[in-house]
């Protein structure tokens, strides 16, 4: 049997251990600031993509508005810090809670009224836009001008002189994301979530409370995206409504697992890596022109859906399953 990218059980745990070891050693090898920053961005988008993957990949609920959770996390950290002097580490935790609560609220409304498929995607997008407009109009977010987090580089203040500090925070978050996905593949909650993705009515007939499971998934997904948002705020120390709640984040959140493989543990890591390597190459070849990178991402998205709907991870899986399907 050929090696598969879709791992589960024991092999997934070993693979995770391997990723953990590589991840810890990596900053020792990355001498340049450029590559460290590159690794941090890949891990950041892995976390964001994993957040989307929990709801979209495992739960089959495609969100076009993950910026709603991400931006809330980012603003929670930033605003609490700037306006109330609350420590950003505490803000980080609160950002996770905030993202989760926004997820729960949007999920409650959407799932309570039975929105599925494309309608769910559109309504999440609309919620993110509402939050963007509100953040743009409100005074405490700094409005359209944005919020600047004052520079004070101490670890206690969640700002690191050396980027390695940020690296390990986002790496830890990425590992938490992997463990969450592993848990989904090996737990009752995850089994029920995947059953809903495959066929909601059949799942309900077998005693699955679809509303509660979907609500749990979107809350979890929102919390992880909120944590990613808090990290973003601390890393860049600047936020505005478009960065936080704009469609850019929502698109990258879904692009990453779609490229890597939806509903797989390592899909987001794979997708974020591929996406950013391709993006970097494009930048080298064609210059740093505005728009070119995103245009390329768009083409990748179209190509993936057309030719590889199961993502890169699906390539291996498809070859593994095909002979069996044909026999039956």
């Amino acid at each position: 049997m050929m090696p598969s990218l879709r791992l589960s059980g024991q092999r997934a745990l070993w693979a995770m251990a391997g990723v953990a070891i590589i991840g810890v050693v990596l900053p020792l090898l990355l001498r340049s600031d450029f590559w460290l920053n590159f690794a941090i961005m890949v891990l950041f988008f892995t976390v964001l993509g994993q957040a989307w993957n929990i709801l979209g990949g495992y739960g089959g609920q495609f969100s076009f508005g993950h910026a709603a959770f991400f931006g809330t996390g980012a603003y929670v950290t930033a605003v609490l810090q700037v306006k109330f002097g609350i420590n950003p580490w505490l803000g980080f935790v609160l950002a996770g809670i905030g993202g989760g609560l926004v997820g729960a609220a949007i999920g409650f409304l959407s799932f309570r009224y039975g929105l599925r498929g494309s309608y769910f995607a559109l309504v999440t997008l609309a919620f993110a836009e509402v939050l963007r407009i509100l953040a743009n109009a409100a005074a405490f977010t700094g409005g359209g001008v944005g919020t600047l987090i004052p520079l004070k580089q101490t670890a206690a203040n969640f700002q690191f002189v050396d980027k390695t500090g940020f690296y390990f925070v986002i790496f830890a978050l990425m590992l938490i994301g992997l463990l969450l996905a592993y848990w989904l593949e090996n737990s009752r909650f995850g089994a029920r979530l995947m059953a809903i993705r495959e066929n909601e009515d059949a799942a309900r007939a077998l005693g699955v409370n679809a509303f509660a499971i979907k609500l749990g998934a979107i809350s979890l997904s929102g919390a992880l995206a909120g944590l990613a948002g808090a990290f973003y705020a601390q890393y860049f120390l600047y936020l505005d409504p478009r960065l936080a709640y704009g469609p850019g984040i929502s698109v990258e959140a879904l692009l990453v697992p779609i490229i890597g493989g939806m509903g797989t543990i390592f899909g987001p890591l794979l997708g974020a890596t591929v996406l950013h390597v391709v993006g970097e190459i494009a930048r080298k070849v064609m210059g740093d022109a505005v728009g070119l990178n995103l245009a390329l991402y768009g083409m990748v998205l179209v190509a993936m859906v057309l030719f590889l709907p199961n993502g890169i991870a699906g390539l291996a899986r498809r070859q593994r399953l095909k002979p069996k399907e044909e026999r039956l």
Partner: protein
Amino acid sequence: MSEPLLDVRHVDKSFGGLRAIADVSLSVHQGEIVALIGPNGAGKTTLFATVAGFLKPDAGAIGFFGHDILGSTPDRICALGLVRTFQIVQPFAGLTVRQNIAVGAHLRHAGRREALELADSVGRRLGMAALLDRPAIGLTVAARKRLELARALATEPRLLLLDEVMAGLNPTEIDEIVAMIRAIRDEGVTVLLIEHVMQAVMSLAERIYVLNNGALIAEGTPAAIAANSAVVDAYLGHGAAGKLQAKQVRHA
């Protein structure tokens, strides 16, 4: 007779102007195999969907195992021990057979290992041992029907509502599934089934309800129903009664 396990009383359900179920009352007792028959469009599947909580009836009462389940949700009704299968099979296409069955097993077993083990044993009992690691999407019709049954059984129900699990099967496969249903009943699961395969109905069911245009038109033992030529003619067409009786004699 003791209190029935399932007690449907005067249930009504309309879609727009169409009265899909009209004042239907029926009961199923612990340990029985009861069949619900009738021509296409008679409202059988609608009745199942209503009993299982997928549709809210306009009027009536539904009692199950001493609980009033009218207006309850499918998952809560399933947790009480009433599970339905779907006439058009609804496999979780992307999951393996074992994972499919485990979704049902998880109803009463929180642990993944326990659920997978139960899924294994249920799958084997229904003759799916070789298929357990196959993705559900590649299964044959017969295997899908069995999977539908296996998943429902894995919820360890008191009452199983089977919606045409024999449709599309060949005679050998029908004999196999008839034996399975009988074995399931012998282990203490009560069965209410919708079926068009008359031969199977006649040999399996202890009592039969006949539904036509949303209303019950007869109830009785297979022999009584088969003898009720007016009923049989009404929904199987003229002359059907005679053929059925002939079959009945051969089987007896």
